[in-house]
């Protein structure tokens, strides 16, 4: 009886279709009609025209081939990148841009991590920040103009609200402007993690490495790797402020070693990323030693 199936191609095709559709319906088709597949965080905002233009460029350049946009709920991953990804963050991404390979780091929490100036400089020359980075240069996007009529059509298809002025403004922007605007929008529906701030509070503490003659040299190695691209040679300043003068957090006057430690560990709201997850205590204190050393030199 069953053997007959292999003599009846149409019947065979029908049975095969049904067999193929069972898993399809259960795991793909049915979930589509459940609420769990369409979550949206309350403070998730649709992309602006400039941000969407940036997302289009992200897709065009295939950034997703090297960068993911999902932080998994794993301890070390949350430490490295920030809060793990929530289902409700992606309602405006058609399609999702989670990616499947991390040749470069995850970008789910890149929004707000660095100031715009960092991104411009990094896109132009990633190797200026990380000498051994294998990321291609994208400074050439500066020569690309945004097409206003096209972008208006894109906003409409996505159903995002926009104003005529917003679209007109695009004419004065470059593709690089758009990409940076998109970078800053990624993951912004979830508040940046404040968890580490509580753990690292040591305003009153003294630098335990004081008196250690080599500490500032160890600090210098780390400085050159992680800090120099923003704070310049020997702490003279650049994208980030000078570390040699007497101005801290826009205020005149010196601050304690412990306070410097806190800034490095926790970052600031103005674009200094937190390093507590990446650098252990000894490394951060050696950076403090290095900064003090440079301050003394410049006096």
């Amino acid at each position, binding site marked *: 009886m069953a053997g007959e199936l292999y003599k009846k191609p149409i019947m065979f095709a029908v049975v095969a279709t049904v067999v193929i559709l069972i898993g399809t319906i259960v*795991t793909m088709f049915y979930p589509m009609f459940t609420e769990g597949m369409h979550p949206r965080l309350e403070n998730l905002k649709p992309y602006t025209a400039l941000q969407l233009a940036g997302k289009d460029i992200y897709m065009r350049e295939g950034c997703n081939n090297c960068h993911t946009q999902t932080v998994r709920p794993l301890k070390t991953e949350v430490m490295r990148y920030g809060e793990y990804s929530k289902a409700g963050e992606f309602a405006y*991404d058609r*399609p*999702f841009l989670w990616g499947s*390979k991390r040749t*470069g780091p995850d970008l789910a929490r890149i929004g707000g991590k660095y100031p715009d100036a960092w991104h411009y400089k990094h896109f132009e020359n990633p190797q200026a920040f990380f000498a051994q980075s294998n990321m291609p240069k994208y400074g050439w996007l500066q020569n690309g103009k945004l097409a206003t009529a096209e972008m208006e059509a894109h906003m409409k298809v996505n159903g995002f609200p926009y104003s005529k002025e917003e679209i007109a403004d695009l004419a004065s922007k470059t593709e690089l402007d758009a990409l940076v605007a998109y970078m800053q929008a990624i993951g912004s529906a979830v508040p940046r993690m404040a968890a580490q701030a509580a753990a690292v509070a040591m305003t009153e503490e003294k630098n335990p490495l004081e008196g250690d003659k080599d500490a500032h040299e160890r600090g210098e190695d780390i400085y050159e790797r992680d800090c120099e691209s923003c704070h310049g040679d020997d702490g003279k300043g650049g994208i980030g402020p000078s570390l040699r003068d007497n101005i801290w957090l826009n205020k005149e006057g010196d601050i304690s070693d412990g306070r410097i430690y806190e800034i490095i560990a926790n970052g600031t709201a103005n674009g200094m990323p937190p390093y507590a997850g990446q650098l*252990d*205590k000894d490394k951060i204190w050696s950076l403090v030693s290095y900064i003090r050393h440079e301050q003394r030199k410049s006096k």
Partner: protein
Amino acid sequence: MNDYQYDHQTVKGFIISSIFWGVVGILIGLWISIQMWKPELNIPPFFTFGRLRVVHTNGLAFGLGIGAIFGISYYIVMRLTKRPLLFPKLARFHLYLFNAAIALAALSLFAGMNQTLEYAELEWPLDIGVVILWVIFAVNVFGTIIKRKEEQMYISLWYVIATVIAVAVLYIVNNLAVPAGLTKSYSLFAGVNSANVQWWYGHNAVGFVFTTPILAMFYYFLPKSTGLPIYSHRLSIIAFWSLVFAYLWTGAHHLVYTPLPDWIQTLGIVFTLFLIAPSWGSVINGYYTVGSDWNKMQTNYLTKFFILGITFYGLQTVQGPTQAIRVVSQLIHYTDWVPGHVHMGTMGWVTMTTAASIYYIIPKIYGTEIYSIKVANIHFWLVLIGQLMFSITMWITGIQQGALWKATNPDGSLKYTFMEGLVKNYPFWQLRTIAGVIFTVGMLFFIYNIYMTIRKGKALAASRA
């Protein structure tokens, strides 16, 4: 022998086209493998890694893979139905349209027209082209099978039919999009839901492009070239139905630890583990078939291609389920382990089986023998060494990457910055390029052998005339 006039021109056309696109895809693969450790080789705007990688994957999956599948499936269908294709002119048109579509696909991907869905990057006008191509294929395959002159449908035909149906469903659903101009569209699906649809598609593209049509070749050409009958018909029935049933449940193993609802992830993992059984059903069937006379490994040069091919299929289908398990996924997901896994399947199983099928077909079409078994053997060993070196290198890199990303100091802080981890990949990535070169040289021996066989065949035909 030939009672029927088979349409060999179309079969041959597809095979040669697929080899051409294969060369393009492999060379771009080498290029991007160097970009991984030498970023200066990115030449914007058309030749950056982000654009070239999709030309590489699409060129090989659709150009080499689908091209060979079209041609070889037509050959198998004609032989097993004992009649020519029902619509030979349509098949010829199919061939021309295929090449036009692949050429346009490559150009559009260079230009950055990219839906950002992996293995479904082509924008909507080309998607329509692909669907037309598939419909033509389906019409010819079904038409020919319905009008067949051999009552019983052999195993290979089951796999061809399943391929035709599944790919149609997968491709159409995943590419549903709202156009926003001729070269840009936005997916109909958003966020978490789009991720689920994409990997349902993505994993089954592997299932119904890199597995079922290749199994159709395996079940047809292994007995043909060895003269040994398939070991167990019953096993092939069980393996077939359980494979096409289970595959469709497994896509979510690509989304372990993402915001996708947990139950879909778990279901995906469970069915992925189950998939070992039907996969190994075919592996065992292959081994026991040749097991009745292992001498064939020595006396018939094609046997080792098929046996090594099915061995890599077997390893692939154990490694894949292992990766799906959460604790393993944690370590190796997003690392180079995954490309290592994929390339064992494509360079080991798919390419070896397809090449062996072509070695069988081309001399048959020209009524001659293969130009050189020695060259075929050199080809075999080079692609084997190249592929093993490629995969093993990538597995080691992947484990290292995953371990460095997870490593912590005694105080709980991360031990390595992302950069410190990346730098450690460079020597492995360089080794991978060397492995790729070895594999490519192997493929050049294959192409040379096919070219010389065709030349020999043509000279023979001329002398007969």
